[in-house]
């Protein structure tokens, strides 16, 4: 891996967003992942989502663990602070960062090994704590950097490129996230940018723990036809329950949908999630039925995608902890130090 800067020059007619930034302003270094890697498509979707939302790049912090997916924050948002931490422990680092400054946007990037194997505990607990973040798992069912071992999300019976069959039961991070109280839960496919970009936008605008599981085939080690995380398998079995548009204040609402199939949800920050239903019987506001639906479809070999659950007015860790509005990292002696008089009283109480 090298750190290659892309040329700064760009076409003068590149479109700009409300802040005057072009898409290029949200890019990072050139990716060193394998050609065709699903993860690069996810990076591109993140770039597109941040561009479309007109976010200030430096107000985003991107954090990751270890693995192919965790390398990707180098490849997007080059003007944002990034933190490539230790394997499976991004959630705690992100939690701490969020505690220190509640005003930034936190993007947690992880993989299936990083979140479902070594980091399952931290994944679970940061979801439980309702950390305000976008937690993306780039899920390929395999360890890429160490060359092809199964991860804990690989389906039972799924076959690796060299013929090994996975005999362990898979962990479904979406089901876990639902059970653990995540307030925005989605699944998508790296090959479906039209679905993924709005989901990322909706997750960013959401307050609380937003989790997106993105099936992202590994072209090097797990893209054989017998793998349930391959491009062919996911395309053949992808069952999207809805399509999402995210509308923030300054956007015009232009989409035109058949009546009765579209719902608009207003989130805490005023953004609107416009949901176009594909499975008419699917209810994304009911955690329990979402879980049931997912598991029924999974048993039938389907990969359910879309916005699977949302609780638009959920709280977050800071609300639950009752912390002050001012970011903790901006408080100084005047706000933090009780001073000598209090100490004198403390001493007196200990004699």
């Amino acid at each position, binding site marked *: 891996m090298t750190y290659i800067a892309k040329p700064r020059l760009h076409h003068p007619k590149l479109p700009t967003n409300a802040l005057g930034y072009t898409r290029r302003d949200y890019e990072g270094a050139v990716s060193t992942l394998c050609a065709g890697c699903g993860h690069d498509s996810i990076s591109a979707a993140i770039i597109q989502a941040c561009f479309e939302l007109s976010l200030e790049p430096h107000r985003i912090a991107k954090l990751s663990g270890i693995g192919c997916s965790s390398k990707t924050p180098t490849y997007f948002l080059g*003007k944002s602070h990034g933190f490539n931490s230790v394997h499976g422990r991004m959630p*705690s680092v992100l*939690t701490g960062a969020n505690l*220190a*400054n509640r005003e930034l946007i936190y993007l947690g990037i992880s993989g299936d090994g990083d979140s479902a194997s070594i980091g399952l505990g931290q994944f679970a607990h940061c979801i439980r704590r309702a950390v305000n973040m976008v937690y993306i798992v780039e899920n390929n069912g395999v360890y890429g950097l160490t060359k092809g071992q199964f991860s804990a999300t690989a389906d039972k019976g799924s076959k690796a490129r060299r013929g090994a069959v996975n005999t362990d039961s898979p962990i479904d991070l979406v089901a876990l996230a639902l059970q653990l109280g995540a307030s925005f839960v989605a699944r998508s496919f790296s090959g479906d940018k039209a679905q993924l970009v709005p989901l990322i936008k909706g997750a960013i605008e959401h307050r609380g723990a937003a989790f997106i599981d993105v099936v992202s085939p590994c072209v090097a080690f797990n893209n054989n036809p017998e793998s349930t995380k391959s491009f062919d398998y996911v395309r053949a079995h992808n069952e999207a329950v809805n399509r999402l548009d995210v509308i923030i204040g300054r956007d015009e609402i232009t989409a035109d949908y058949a009546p009765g199939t579209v719902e608009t949800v207003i989130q805490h920050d005023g953004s609107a999630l416009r949901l176009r239903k594909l499975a008419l019987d699917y209810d994304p506001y009911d955690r329990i039925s979402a879980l049931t639906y997912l598991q029924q479809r999974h048993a039938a070999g389907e990969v359910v995608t879309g916005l699977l659950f949302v609780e638009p007015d959920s709280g977050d860790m800071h609300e639950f902890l009752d*912390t002050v509005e001012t970011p903790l990292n901006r408080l100084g002696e005047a706000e933090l130090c009780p001073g000598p008089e209090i100490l004198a009283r403390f001493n007196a109480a200990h004699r």
Partner: protein
Amino acid sequence: MAFQSNLEVAAIQRVNDFVVKFANVNGSGSASANALFAKSILRMGIPASSRNIFPSNIQGLPTWYEVRISKSGHLGRRGGVDMMVAMNPETWDEDLAEIEPGGYLFYDSTKPLPPSKFRDDINVIGAPLTAICNSEYTDARQRQLFKNIIYLGALSALLNIDVAAIEKLIGEQFRGKDTLIKPNLHALHLGRDWALAEHDCPIGLRLERADKVGDRIFMNGNDAAALGCVFGGATVAAWYPITPSSSLAEAFAAHCNRYRRDPDTKKKRYAIIQAEDELASIGIVIGAAWNGARAFTATAGPGISLMQEFIGLAYFAEIPAVIFDVQRGSPSTGMPTRTQQADILSCAYASHGDTKHVLLFPEDPRESFTFAAEALDLADRLQTPVFVMLDLDIGMNDWLVEPLEWDESRRYDRGKVMTAEELGAGIEFGRYLDVDGDGIPFRTLPGTHPTRGAFFTRGTSKDRYARYSEEGPDYVDNMQRLLHKFETAKRLVPRPVKRAAREPTAFGALYFGSTAAAMSEALEALENRGIHIDTMRIRAFPFHDDILDFVTGHEKIFVVEQNRDAQLRTLLMNEGDLDPARLVPILHYDGTPITARFIVKAIADMLAVVTLAPLKKALP
């Protein structure tokens, strides 16, 4: 009839200078009566310290409370017991064996014991405590709880404790629960009246009002360290429950709740996370500190083991973190409720690869307070993990210490953090660039400037501009700068405290942490025997040059520590390139706090060997 004392025994006669030990059953409510005992002595102006020796259990196992009363102000453990208050039949034999010849045994004589259960060289005071309780109370819980207050009342007469001081303390203790005051006072006088009626009071051990306490305070180190974090500006704490450090995090919560609420909104100017494990605790601390908040965690040895990978990341990526290690008996689960200084090496070199960390060694609760605030400054200044090495003895026992102090003009040292203005003015920023020659680079906080100062933090090797690099020269350059930064740390950490013997001597002693309390008494005793030793109390790692000069300035150095493997000695040899033969280990590691007598004997024995042995022969 109770066994009575052998009148032929020469009874110890001592005023304001003795050791009383209480042998109890845990969960029996004895702790509060015992604490009243210690505090009432302090209220009489007599220096005293107390130590709980307790099991890892909630109810039913043996527990001891040892009070050292010392008019000379020696607040460590002395060794030996002048009066044993034996309230636990399970430990009767070992408790009896600990009493000094001529010392005193106080016990519940309700149930007769055969003479074979006693020693004939001690003075026995049998009080029918259960009988008194049974005739006075019908409720079983009351019988149990008031028995403790009754023995306190009896001791007040036997030892001449100012009963008014105890009465006042009871009033303070139950302030707001006034209905409890009267029955407690009643029980106190039941015991006191029994002793006055049945015994010549006071006995040979007695207390006389003095003025040796001054304005000193009585508190434990975990509480003090937590308060130091409040004063030092910590806003994020993440922890996982583990003895003996849990009370540090809990005290931080209590202090913050009191002193850290926004006066208008009542919202919290702090965040505390009880994490799912120690890995998450340190991860949260690192994330918060990366983002500019002062953050800490509190743990014990097993927690340090779990944090290793993250500590290496913080060292290499240069992120501040403050870690309180309240050391306990190790390895493994070891002795969770006993004290040791056995994490020195595992903290000094924590994590894989070439790492070295800053350690601070407070000697008591007062230094726990000052070093806590100091650690937060040092971590920010040096951008590295800083360990504050408490132990169970300091952390969980109440110590008599000088009042805590805070200079109003003191400002937090937030270290080298480049601001938006500086970045905007075009000042060059290289995250790992040594611009000042001290090995400490500048950092930026996320969200500072729209176009400048962003960088990627990683545990992998990188160049001076935080760009990923696997080039050998880049790696070596960075590792050498980290070493240079560690040299800078030497100048910033607390300096050692030196004390010269009354006469010039070839012998020196090095010690640190909770050993200090017993050391002062040991040195006095050695000096009385004509053995003179210069001492130096180490307060931090990396070692200040003064420490190495002290070692090379003496023929033999006793290194006194509370672990099996002489860990500080190893660290000294390793870092100072010192001759091992010069450093003589004095090691105490049975889980109880080191005593003055242990140190005296070990050093005196050693010196006998040194003086008898031919000069060329190595020490055993």
